[in-house]
């Protein structure tokens, strides 16, 4: 063999050298066939490390490279670039992972040294059979899809649109705005949520670069970075947005009820109209109502049509059906936000069973000036509460439900305490495990609340019950808790309880993640590319994340991440082209029998059939090199470039030779 391979063994500080006998490994590699030289260095990825390789290639000592260091996920690209710089095809380089798969997982130095040798022998053996592959580049479509119209999606869409790029914003609810549109005040500054959000919503609605699709859901995503084809389902809203001018006549006359009108104050909580034809809230964008066909009298009983008769613009269309729209985008930003934990499963807390036990989201809506109580804090019977208990960590930091901290609850709980003190004369008890006030101005806000006569009790609430044990508890909700600062068990009777429910990933996130080919962690949130250095990217090129779909976040962090995601997309668009993996599959026409087994197996729809020649053909631009067709071909006619049979067998032989 004429191949001259250079092997470079990295110490990775003590990460590898602490568990692998480097000298022994170097001596071993020197003895391998085809190896021209072996060198070792403290950090191969550093400038001097890279320079070693460069010097050897430029001195014409070697023409192929093996680096034994960390995972290819970490530095494959780094070393491929080194090869490319000095004129060696990057596909003539192999990485042997002797860190994650070796030094980090073995206890015994002898074991890990032996394994390192085997991995290097495998890499060297494989490298002999590698073939140079041409560089592949694709162009980037400058249009971007943003999934989710909460504050994260709004921010990302506006950033891109303001930079002159086209955006398609898809939101499944009838209006954009997300959770933030339901809040009255935001912590810690107590500025009005609507006042800061509404102008941005309007801007989104009017921006010439933003195509806004509300009441629409992602249906299918195909393609790859720079060239995604997306299909969106427009749900039938039964109101023609082109004709409707949002006058409100329809919901004023609608006899249907979406939110019960007869229930108590808490059952009737709502931001928008309670009728069957409704807008989720009055500042909705677009200001176009939808018909809730589940409660609409016409859809349920076949007669009514009141909205149709009062609509001067004839915008009501009962025969509207779901429609599908397909378009192309270059990048995708997932900004699907969160849902709040359903506390019904914690029966001890009585939500759903005991009146006056509320979730934080109910409480937000009640506090909202635009809501059904006009912002007044009321008990279910309409009277003012004399005491309120705020319970932290409901469904968060609890191994039974969610292990993670929801990050926002401590702060919104403090906001509630303040609002209660401001609006009522009620006594406030705040039950917390730890007070986590990590953000800018948060600790100061806590400090302010400490001076507002709020009773803070450190302890996880055991139970909320309506069973009194003495006269004082009669007719009250009794909160049982161990006060861990004093070391006593307390029973605190209150009129109303607010459960600070934690944040979970939004409904349907798993489906969106599957469509976009990104992974979801065991906590239900999308896994970012790197927890520290790649917080807005994902393992799939061209798919980015923003906001609470990645982890629970407050508004400032969400907005920051959204802007980061849009800036990452902008840098892709500005670059215009992107290099993609050259390792695709290739069909040997002479061997192909035209059986077409591979045609339907390809997950990227990259294989078609050439009727004239009677063979299958792979579209290289679409092929991701997954190897499914290679394994399925009965004639052995398909070759996976860079993972060819002889390369794999050589690798196995090398591995077993030690």
């Amino acid at each position, binding site marked *: 063999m004429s191949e001259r391979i250079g092997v470079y063994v990295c110490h990775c500080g003590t990460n590898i050298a602490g568990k692998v006998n480097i000298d022994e490994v170097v001596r071993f590699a020197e003895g391998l066939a085809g190896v021209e030289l072996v060198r070792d260095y403290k950090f191969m990825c550093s400038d001097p490390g890279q320079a070693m390789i460069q010097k050897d290639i430029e001195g014409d000592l070697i023409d192929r490279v093996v680096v034994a260091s960390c995972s290819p996920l970490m530095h494959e690209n780094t070393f491929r670039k080194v090869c490319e710089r000095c004129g060696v095809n990057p596909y003539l380089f192999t990485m042997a992972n002797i860190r994650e798969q070796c030094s980090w997982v073995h206890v015994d130095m002898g074991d890990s040294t032996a394994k390192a040798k085997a991995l290097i022998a495998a890499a060297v053996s494989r490298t002999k059979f590698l073939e140079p592959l041409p560089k592949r580049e694709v162009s980037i479509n400058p249009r971007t899809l943003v999934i989710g119209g909460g504050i994260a999606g709004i921010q990302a869409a506006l950033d891109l649109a303001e930079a002159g790029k086209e955006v398609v914003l898809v939101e499944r609810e009838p209006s954009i705005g997300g959770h933030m549109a339901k809040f009255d005040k935001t912590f810690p500054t107590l500025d009005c949520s609507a006042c800061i959000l509404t102008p941005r919503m309007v801007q989104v609605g009017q921006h010439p670069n933003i195509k806004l699709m509300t009441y629409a859901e992602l249906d299918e995503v195909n393609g790859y970075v720079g060239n995604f084809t997306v299909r969106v389902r427009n749900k039938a809203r039964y109101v023609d947005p082109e004709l409707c001018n949002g006058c409100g006549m329809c919901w004023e006359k609608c006899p249907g009820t979406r939110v019960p009108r007869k229930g108590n104050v808490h059952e009737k909580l709502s931001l928008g109209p309670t009728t069957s034809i409704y807008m989720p809230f009055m500042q909705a964008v677009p200001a176009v109502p939808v018909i809730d066909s589940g409660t609409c009298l016409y859809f349920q009983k076949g007669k009514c049509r009141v909205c149709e008769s009062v609509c001067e613009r004839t915008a009501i269309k009962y025969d509207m059906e779901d429609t599908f729209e397909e378009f192309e985008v270059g990048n995708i930003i997932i900004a699907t936000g969160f849902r709040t934990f359903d506390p019904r499963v914690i*029966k001890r807390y009585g939500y759903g069973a005991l009146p006056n036990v509320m979730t934080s989201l109910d409480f937000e809506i009640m506090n909202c000036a635009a809501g059904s109580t006009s912002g007044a804090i009321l008990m279910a019977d309409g009277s003012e509460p004399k005491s309120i208990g705020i319970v932290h960590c409901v469904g968060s930091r609890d191994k039974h439900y969610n292990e993670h901290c929801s990050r926002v609850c401590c702060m919104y709980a403090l906001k509630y305490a303040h609002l209660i003190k401001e609006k009522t004369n009620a006594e406030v008890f705040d039950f917390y495990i730890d007070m986590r006030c990590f953000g800018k101005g948060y600790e100061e806000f806590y400090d302010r609340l400490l001076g507002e006569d709020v009773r803070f009790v450190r302890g996880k609430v055991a139970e909320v019950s309506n*069973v009194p*044990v003495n006269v004082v508890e009669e007719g009250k909700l009794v909160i049982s808790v161990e006060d861990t600062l004093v070391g006593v068990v307390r029973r605190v009777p209150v009129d109303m309880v607010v459960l600070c429910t934690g944040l979970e990933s939004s409904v349907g996130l798993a489906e969106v993640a599957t469509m976009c080919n990104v992974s979801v962690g065991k906590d239900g949130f999308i896994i970012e590319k790197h927890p520290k250095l790649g917080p807005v990217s994902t393992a799939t090129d061209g798919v980015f994340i923003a906001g609470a779909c990645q982890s629970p976040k407050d508004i400032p962090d969400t907005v920051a991440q959204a802007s980061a995601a849009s800036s990452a997309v902008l840098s892709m668009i500005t670059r215009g082209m992107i290099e993609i993996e050259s390792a695709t599959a290739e069909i040997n026409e002479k061997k192909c029998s035209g059986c077409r087994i591979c045609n339907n197996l390809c997950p990227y729809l990259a294989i078609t059939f050439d009727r004239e020649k009677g063979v299958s053909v792979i579209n290289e631009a679409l092929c991701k090199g997954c190897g499914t067709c290679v394994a399925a071909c009965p004639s052995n006619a398909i070759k996976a470039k860079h993972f060819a049979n002889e390369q794999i067998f050589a690798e196995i032989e090398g591995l077993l030779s030690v």
Partner: protein
Amino acid sequence: MKYTYYPGCSVGATANLYQDSINVVAPKVGVELEELQDWNCCGATAYMSVKELMSFAISARNLALAEPFHRDVVTPCSACYLVLNKTNHYFAEYPELRKKLGKALEAGGLSYSGNIRVRHLLDVFVNDVGPERLSELATKKLAGLRVAPYYGCQIVRPEEGFDDPDEPESMDRLIEAIGATCVEYPMKAKCCGASLMGTQEKLALKLCRELLANAVRADAHCIVTLCPLCQMNLDVYQPKVNGLFRTKFNIPVIYFTQLIGLSLGIPPRELGLHRLAVKMTKQMKDVLKGA
């Protein structure tokens, strides 16, 4: 349906009325209980916190004795149920302890491999016999009888058991199946004080008062339970609760097997109902007569 029966110490003494009813009711619903020969006390929950290893060892002896029969072990007592299950759980989870227990059993010429399932009698009635079957068998539906279903704390905790730890409902289904009505009883899984009655009597009496008060408040004719200690505390100590808190509770506390026995038409005496400290009230008797 045949089971290995582990009665536990209580039903031979303070809870003999429980055993009375089991003796007559179990055969009628097709539950065959074969008593484990030479069984010993499980140590109950108190011993577990004093001498843990010894407690595990004496419990494991019972499981070892039962293993050759390859049948589920059934106990009517919540404490036995808890302790035997805990022993099983620790035996499976902790290899160190398993070794020690193995040695202890070996000294007595026994061995245990961990394959015996321990079940409460209520579990058998609910899941093996089933409410539908009981409803068929109940010749005398107890219509009009208002019952506070009381589970106590040990049968449902820790939470891997056969019912919800906060809001158990399995016994409710049995009670409804034989025609009686379950009242809203939020205390159904709260503690009665258990053995604190022997050491911290006032505290235990206070806990019992809450249980009794809530049953009375819900207008129940009787409390139905499944645990010998719960029954004794609520029944025998009821006059003491009345004395301490100046209350006038007079509510019978009976076992679920006794209630089922009544619906099967078995005379109260055969069910051990005459042994109650708080006798069946006239009101309850009237309802039963009318039913």
